[in-house]
């Protein structure tokens, strides 16, 4: 089903949705700086031409999330979990890369062994209105990661910006609940034609030639390679690439306490932090940037594929854009791919 939503009606459309749903969408915190947040009024929504700094994973897996509250009742401790999601939710505006990443996170948090209720409840309660990426950047490499600027997986509804209006594609049963909205009209052939053109143009623009073939196997042989000294040398050990990565999902669990009453909270954590794997004794199995940067890359391109069968990188380019040492994961991948030739020649 393909519908048309005039931009002049956009705020009214959102206001209508907000009667039934909590709305999460990009909000601008400063010039050029935005994040996904819960919306109080449609005017806060800022659908910018490129990705917000923080990825959409934050809506399902917040950077800082209370898991339960506790308090003493007599000698016993009463625990109240905050896992329940009270209202249905809409996530508006994530691009295909962020949504592909969410599907990867699904395999972690909603996978076969243990289901993470906090994530799963939010995920189940949420209808996703994805957004076509009509202006991919030179740092994007989604098309090399089995995605693309118009990749629709993960969206219940999919918006394509036509200039004056959005073309709204209804893709799932969940999305159908919204198609009856009064501001959605049937799209005409011009709209469809225009959308097709935009899609073709963007898809062409996003073409990249980064090859990932055989990377998992190559990394298997590279664990002890001096290559990682080189990668780790430049890293300053901040957490930008992991916090801004739409697929990274490490976390820490801590208690925040005041006089016997408090909360257990989980915060994002990062394998690039020196303290992340440090044990209480002071021993650290990943003592330097060499092991830590290796962990990050191995996890994305070797461990994750081993466990789930998919690479845990979607090519959004955030780590390329925001690395304070201007490390470029694409360059690193290329070097890993080159590594194969050297080692096979040597053998």
């Amino acid at each position, binding site marked *: 089903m393909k519908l048309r939503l005039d931009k002049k009606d956009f705020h009214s459309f959102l206001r209508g949705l907000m009667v039934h749903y909590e709305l999460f969408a990009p909000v601008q915190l400063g*010039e050029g700086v935005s994040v996904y947040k819960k919306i109080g009024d449609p005017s806060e929504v800022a659908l910018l031409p490129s990705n917000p700094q923080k990825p959409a994973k934050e809506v399902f897996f917040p*950077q800082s999330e209370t898991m339960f509250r506790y308090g003493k009742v007599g000698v016993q401790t009463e625990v109240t979990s905050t896992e329940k999601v009270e209202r249905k939710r809409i996530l508006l505006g994530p691009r295909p890369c962020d949504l592909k990443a969410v599907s990867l996170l699904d395999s972690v948090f909603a996978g076969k062994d243990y289901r993470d209720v906090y994530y799963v409840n939010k995920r189940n309660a949420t209808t996703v209105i994805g957004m076509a990426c009509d202006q991919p950047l030179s740092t994007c490499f989604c098309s090399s990661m089995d995605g693309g600027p118009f990749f629709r997986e993960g969206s219940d509804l999919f918006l394509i910006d036509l200039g004056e209006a959005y073309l709204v594609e209804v893709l799932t049963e969940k999305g159908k609940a919204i198609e009856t909205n009064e501001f959605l009209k049937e799209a005409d052939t011009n709209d469809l034609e225009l959308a097709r053109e935009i899609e073709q143009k963007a898809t062409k623009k996003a073409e990249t030639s980064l090859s990932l073939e055989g990377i998992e196997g190559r990394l298997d042989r590279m664990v002890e390679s001096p290559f990682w000294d080189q990668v780790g040398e430049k890293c*300053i050990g901040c957490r930008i690439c992991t916090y801004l990565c739409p697929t990274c999902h490490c976390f*820490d669990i*801590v208690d925040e306490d005041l006089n016997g009453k408090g909360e257990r909270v989980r915060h994002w954590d990062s394998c690039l932090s020196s303290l992340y794997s440090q044990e209480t004794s002071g021993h650290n199995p990943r003592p330097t940037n060499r092991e830590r940067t290796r962990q990050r890359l191995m996890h994305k391109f070797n461990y994750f594929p081993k466990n789930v069968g998919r690479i845990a990188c979607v090519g959004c380019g955030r780590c390329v854009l925001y690395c*304070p040492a201007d490390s470029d994961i694409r360059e690193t991948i290329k070097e890993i791919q080159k590594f194969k030739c050297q080692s096979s020649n040597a053998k």
Partner: protein
Amino acid sequence: MIQERLRQKAKELLESKAVDLIVGFGEGSLPLRATPIFIRNPQEVNRLIWNSFCGHNLSTYLHKLKSLKVGLVVKGCDSRSAVALLLEKRFKADQLFLIGVPCQRMVDRRRVKRAVQGEILRVSAQGDELIVEGEDFKTTLNRKDFLYPSCQVCVHRMPLRADVLLGKPVEEFSLLETHPEIEEFLGKTPEERWDYFERETGRCIRCYACREACPMCYCTECFVDSSNPQWMEKGLSPSDLEFYHIVRAYHQTGRCSGCGACERACPMEIRLTYLTQKLNEDVKELFGFETGVVGDAFAPLSTYDMGDKQEFIK
């Protein structure tokens, strides 16, 4: 040309084994950027570059290179950080060979980005001009209008200490009487100032890039990570974010060279140098001290003077 001399010097140093490696700037993979590079092989010196985008303060890498003899490419601010680190006995002076480069001041890529519509794909600098190109635009910008905030108020463009100085000395700026941004900020009411601080730090995602980019942040355990005592929580509450940023900045009192690495590293574009610049100004006014300017002066908070001001004490 500086770049040529830089490569030549690096080659000399590596070939004569005067240093184990050169830490310098290389071509970044994106326009408007350079990237830190580590060169051990004299054949690779041609990867070294010098241009308007060499903003990193490379002395932040020194902590990890403790067992080596390092040839470090430094600007004015970077050399001051290196001197401050020597003062704090982070390494021995003979471990370090400072390759000083007079700084033409660095271009703030975010300012340039804001000046144009669309993605920047190519940039070239010619004298005072920046030629910026994208898919469907090409503009010429005046370099001077797009400097980093920290570079705009920089007074020591020449490395104050260097084992070799490349290029002709540039004119030093006269000492600014006041810092315009600080002046402006002080013109606001305390409430407005706090609101600004809260708004800026409110964007913080606690990636600690400001800390990691800073050459002076080298504690093995940062106060923010300490669990015993636990000074603060690790979440995103405004108070905790403010706590972190107050103490991160305050820990730089009398140690900050004003290089602006903290601010440049921040992915959320939080203004940070207006904090450290103020501390620098206070330290100068109260104790007559500037970080890394006089090599053997005591760090101001590790010493005292009988005559220090105390009108604020009851």
